């Protein structure tokens, strides 16, 4: 047999042959009928072949490298599980961050898989279609690897068991859920700007890089492995997001105002979701790599600043909420953890007052705000708790109609005053946490009046178990809501100090370190 090797194709040639060259223009059906969603958003594309993935990744290379990543990842997860790696984490407070991750983030990975499968199908260009296909497969891999690695914790700790059920019901999980539902119900171009660019490029570094480095710092090889394995795909996703936005802007000058409005909207939507990440970084990691504020400065202010500086040549401006987000960095995590401490009876993870050592760190990292505004709060809670009066807020908070976060954020220039905004639409008044969320509502009230707001739904009686009887005099509505959440009272919720997780972790760790 003739085995003479022919000259290897260049990366550019291989990319052309295996993406654009495999595509065709339909003749039995009109292009518009095959790709029906590309017109109605008003984006004008004249030549889809102008899009090129700068990584020049082809499907054959994709499968090869993804398989390699999976082999490495599962080797680490197996080793971690075999060696009871969960007992090597700093302490069991850390595990609560994983509960929030599994219930809040993992289902979004699955929605991203669906979103990119849909958008990839709808784009007429072969380049974006292949890149979206790869991202769609990546995202389902992320969902699966997160479920696999966290299932090990589910064997030992409370609060993991009903993650999927809870994602669709629990009050704080409606924040990430509604964010992604909002994106996948937009048109294909808006979805790409929302998730591909605003979320992946501008914001996900904040979720996966310092937080996952933090997981490693706290001894969690399992979370480090899935986090960084996911993030290696994220580099490709960020690149797709940046290239698609440049491509849209280069295709027609009429696209700029549409794209700018989406950037303003989706930066703010994504930023609000990151409230949960800010709190995880500053309060839920027993050992911290960097503060939320430092992460914001590195990944948003410096890097995002360089990015928008670069995009200025297309006429793109920094998103509207940017300035406020930069001011908020001194307050965000503290206000969020205070809210969860308040509602610690209704959360599927444990909450706690930061220790004196934690507060010393917070004072150093937040010299302008922590001692003045937040330390007194924690010291008050700690005194109450020491006297047997651990505070649990038994009321329901008002939620923002758009981001669905409880109204807990303060005015950008007055950290002692809660911000309230409202709009009237067709005879009803709607409430918002910020100018950013109000402005999103005012542009699309028809969409956001449909928000499934957990607190409204509880008051309307839609969050009780099937056999509940609210007419009975001894009916306890909040207890029944927790049953409907499948949240085991006294086991999945309340303070870390009294938790079964804490007792078990300490007992098991002492077994692991002595006879």
């Amino acid at each position, binding site marked *: 047999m003739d085995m003479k090797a022919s000259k290897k194709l260049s990366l550019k040639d291989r990319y052309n042959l295996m993406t654009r060259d495999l595509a065709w223009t339909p003749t039995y059906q009109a292009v518009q009928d095959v790709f029906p969603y590309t017109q109605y958003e008003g984006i004008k594309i004249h030549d889809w072949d102008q899009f090129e993935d700068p990584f020049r990744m082809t499907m054959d290379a994709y499968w090869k490298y993804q398989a390699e990543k999976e082999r490495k990842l599962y080797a680490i997860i197996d080793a971690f599980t075999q060696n009871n790696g969960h007992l090597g984490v700093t302490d069991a407070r850390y595990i609560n961050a994983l509960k929030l991750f599994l219930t809040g983030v993992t289902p979004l990975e699955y929605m991203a898989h669906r979103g990119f499968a849909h958008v990839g199908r709808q784009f007429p260009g072969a380049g974006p279609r292949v890149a979206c296909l790869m991202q769609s497969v990546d995202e389902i891999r992320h969902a699966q690897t997160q479920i696999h690695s966290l299932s090990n914790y589910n064997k030992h700790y409370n609060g993991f068991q009903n993650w999927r059920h809870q994602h669709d019901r629990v009050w704080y999980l409606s924040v990430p859920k509604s964010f992604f539902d909002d994106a996948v119900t937009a048109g294909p171009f808006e979805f790409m700007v929302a998730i591909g660019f605003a979320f992946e490029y501008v914001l996900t570094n904040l979720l996966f*890089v310092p937080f996952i480095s933090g997981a490693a710092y706290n001894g969690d090889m399992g979370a480090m492995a899935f986090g960084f394995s996911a993030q*290696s795909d994220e580099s490709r996703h960020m690149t797709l997001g940046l290239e698609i936005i440049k491509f849209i802007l280069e295709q027609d000058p009429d696209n700029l105002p549409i794209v700018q409005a989406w950037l303003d909207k989706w930066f703010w939507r994504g930023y609000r979701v990151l409230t949960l990440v800010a709190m995880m970084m500053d309060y839920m990691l027993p050992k911290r790599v960097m503060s939320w504020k430092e992460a914001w400065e590195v990944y948003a202010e410096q890097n995002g600043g360089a990015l928008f500086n670069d995009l200025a040549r297309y006429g793109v401006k920094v998103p509207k909420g940017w300035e406020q987000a930069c001011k908020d960095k001194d307050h965000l995590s503290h206000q969020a953890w205070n809210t969860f401490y308040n509602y610690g009876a209704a959360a599927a993870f444990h909450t706690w007052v930061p220790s004196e050592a934690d507060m010393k760190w917070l004072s150093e990292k937040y010299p302008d705000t922590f001692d003045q505004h937040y330390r007194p709060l924690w010291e008050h809670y700690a005194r109450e708790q020491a006297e047997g009066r651990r505070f649990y807020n038994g009321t329901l908070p008002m939620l923002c109609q758009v981001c669905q976060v409880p109204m807990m954020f303060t005015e950008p220039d007055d950290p002692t005053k809660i911000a309230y905004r409202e709009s009237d639409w067709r005879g009803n008044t709607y409430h918002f946490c910020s100018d950013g969320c109000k402005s999103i509502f005012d542009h699309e009230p028809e969409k956001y009046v449909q928000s499934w707001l957990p607190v409204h739904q509880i008051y309307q009686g839609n969050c009780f178990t099937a056999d509940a009887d609210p007419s009975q005099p001894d009916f306890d509505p909040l207890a029944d809501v927790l049953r409907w959440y499948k949240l085991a009272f006294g086991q999945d919720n309340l303070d870390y100090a009294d938790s079964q997780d804490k007792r078990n972790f300490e007992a098991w760790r002492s077994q692991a370190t002595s006879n």
Partner: protein
Amino acid sequence: MPNVFIAFQRNEETRPIVEAIVADNPAAVVNEQPAMVKIDAPGRLVIRRTTIEDEIGRDFDLQELQINLITLTGHIDETEDEFVLSWNP
């Protein structure tokens, strides 16, 4: 000039890659964090296949960078020989 950056998992596969990057980019700053290494460079950063091959003593395909990549920023241009990150190309 604003920085571009690239970050890798910190392991034995990436150690020679980071050394190659430092050799090819004198202005690069290496920042080691738990489990990861981030390299910042003003305006432009280039990763050369041949420099990595000299470090590791075998053939290297630049797409292998994907395996340990964590994040990056800047416009990308990748060929068989070079992987370049830059602002305002």
